[in-house]
């Protein structure tokens, strides 16, 4: 991989904001060395349209004892092997603002660093370019790279502008055209526990439409080059919210055991759960440390994949800030036969849903058929019949034979 014309000491890949953050960091002396630019310098990368930004730092390092070994961003971290991605992602606290994260040694003994400056070129490139690595190698070898959609640049611009102008059909087409690309981004997270694929896609659609609103076609950038980052950022945010670090060192495990034990003791003595601050004081750890340890304990619960907040109040649906995105999501996703979406209850009428919800306590405490009947002014037997019919509808939906 000498085709890039410079030698990597540090690698950075990611979003335009990340780049800005990187440049700022350099001004503040955080990152020694010169930043060499990038997409422009590597025509094959610019041609992919699937790489939001790639950057690198030259080998010329001024600082004799550099503090930074590897610079990575969301995109890069999640481009490497999942085991690494999870541990490093956690150690970097990727939810952060600028998108730029730095790793200095020692980061945190609980996690490992994916690579350091002694890693060979290929390793660093793989980290920096993540899943794009192969396509870049192919591009260097003169092989064609697939564009993310079949849209022509002109058509793409037209769709973006029309959808921002509020034309539903254009929005639909835009989302549909980029859905495979969004699904490609979602795949980066396929082994992350507790993250539902459909929720990821949903977030990706939100990110795409957000990008459309901010996109400036006059700059001549391919839409995906801009939107890809936004899509990833939206998904990353969801992932950060839903997952917690799961790779623990022995030391952390001992700390976790101590926290558990202390909590149990407190519960016995006081008859209530201790607050996090109380726990932190008792085990002599910081509040943040206790929080992250408790988060780890919550992690391996396959059932708890819904994105509820600490009060259990917020569903994944509530997290959608953009109602048009939600609408688009429903419409597009429902057309994807292969997605096997399991939201069967959409096929029910409001009353049928209401009866199921009330009878089985899906929203609030469960009620008997008689109680529901009294509320709706019909007999318990009638409620039972409606329930049976709605379950039959749901069964038919599974069989794919609904009208």
């Amino acid at each position, binding site marked *: 991989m000498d085709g890039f014309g410079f030698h990597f000491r540090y690698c950075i890949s990611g979003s335009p904001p990340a780049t800005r953050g990187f440049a700022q960091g350099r001004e503040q002396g955080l990152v020694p060395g010169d930043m060499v630019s990038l997409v422009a310098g590597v025509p094959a990368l610019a041609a992919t349209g699937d790489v939001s930004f790639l950057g690198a730092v030259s080998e010329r390092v001024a600082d004799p004892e550099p503090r930074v070994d590897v610079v990575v961003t969301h995109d890069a971290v999640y481009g490497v092997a999942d085991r690494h991605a999870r541990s490093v992602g956690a150690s970097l606290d990727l939810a952060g603002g600028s998108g730029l994260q730095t790793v200095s040694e020692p980061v945190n003994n609980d996690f490992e660093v994916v690579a350091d400056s002694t890693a060979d070129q290929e390793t660093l490139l793989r980290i920096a370019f993540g899943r794009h690595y192969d396509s870049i190698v192919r591009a260097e070898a003169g092989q064609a790279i697939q564009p993310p959609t079949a849209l022509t640049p002109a058509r793409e611009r037209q769709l973006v502008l029309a959808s921002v102008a509020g034309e539903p059909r254009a929005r639909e087409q835009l989302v549909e055209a980029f859905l495979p690309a969004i699904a490609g981004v979602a795949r980066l997270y396929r082994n992350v526990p507790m993250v539902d694929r459909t929720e990821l896609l949903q977030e990706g659609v939100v990110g795409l439409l957000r990008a459309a609103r901010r996109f400036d076609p006059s700059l001549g950038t391919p839409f995906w080059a801009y939107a890809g980052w936004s899509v990833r950022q939206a998904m990353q945010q969801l992932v950060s919210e839903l997952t917690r670090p799961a790779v623990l060192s022995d030391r952390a495990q001992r700390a976790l055991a101590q926290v558990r034990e202390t909590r149990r003791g407190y519960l016995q003595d006081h008859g209530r759960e201790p607050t996090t601050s109380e726990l932190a004081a008792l085990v002599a750890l910081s509040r943040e440390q206790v929080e992250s340890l408790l988060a780890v304990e919550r992690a391996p619960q396959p059932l708890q994949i819904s994105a509820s907040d600490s009060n259990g109040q917020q569903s994944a649906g509530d997290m959608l800030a953009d109602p048009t995105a939600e609408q688009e999501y429903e419409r597009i996703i429902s057309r994807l*036969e292969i997605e096997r979406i399991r939201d*069967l209850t959409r096929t029910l009428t409001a009353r049928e849903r209401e009866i199921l919800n009330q009878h089985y306590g899906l929203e609030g405490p*469960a009620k008997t058929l008689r109680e529901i009947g009294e509320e709706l002014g019909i007999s318990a037997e009638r409620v039972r019949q409606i*329930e049976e019919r709605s379950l039959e509808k749901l069964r038919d939906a599974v069989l794919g034979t609904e009208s």
Partner: protein
Amino acid sequence: MDTQLGTRSHPGLRHEAIVADADETFVGHVAPFLRAGLEEGATLTVLNRRHWALLREELGADAEQVAYTDCEDFYTRPIDALASYDATLRRLTAAGATSVRVAAEIPLGPTRSSWEEWMSYEAIVNHALASRPAHILCVYDTQITPDSVIDAVWRTHPHVVTDGAAGPHYHDSDDAITAFTRSPSRELPLRPLPLTQDVIALREALSAELAGAEAPKQKVVNMLIAASQVFDNALRHGGGVTALRAGLVDGWFVCEIEDHGPGLDDPLAGYVPPAPGQPGRQGLWIARQLATRLELIPGRPGLTVRLWL
């Protein structure tokens, strides 16, 4: 087995594999395969992106007519893949296609158990889709496929093409099918639920358990429907329900329904897509779709169906 008889006058499944040790072998076989399909009817590709890119180059303008789905999206779980095939073939047939060619590639997971699961799937396909007018060419890349899987490919595909030589090495056997579907005998620490023969009482008890386990609403609905199907089977074919159990195991919600019946001797139970409008054979198919995993455990002394959510 009649799967080798998939001629055009008798439409039926033709299930082949190509074991390719180089990109040229792959392209050299799959491209002509799809071109022939374009003349006959519909064509689909379910491949990884790299293979699809290679193929597109080779197909040139013809690629426009070939439908592509990323294999990671298609092959999520065996039962989902069967359902996707079922729905897709039904849709294409309804649209007038008399034959459908599919070049397919299963993205094998990282674990041995996932390899076994997909190889059982390959064995099941021969039966589950036997009567469909489909010609499926499964692509296996020797560079990324474990040897044990390659061995299983020969057992599960009536035809295997390798280096230009084709020949039957197919051993249809229940072993291949049951490799994964065979149930583990491990007893799980579940709580007994009040025994009932009334499906509504079962659902009420189960929904209370699920609420306790903080299962998301959509998953509750799925479990209630899946359990109702299994419960209904137990009443109709199993001589009545003898025990109900539920609880959390390793964080998964598990429900067991036990009946008097001797169990099912068909390892394909619930894997064959039921024909539309044909009642009676749908229960297990539906339950398998909705549950994360469904296990059949005979001889306790009756049949126990274990549903994982």
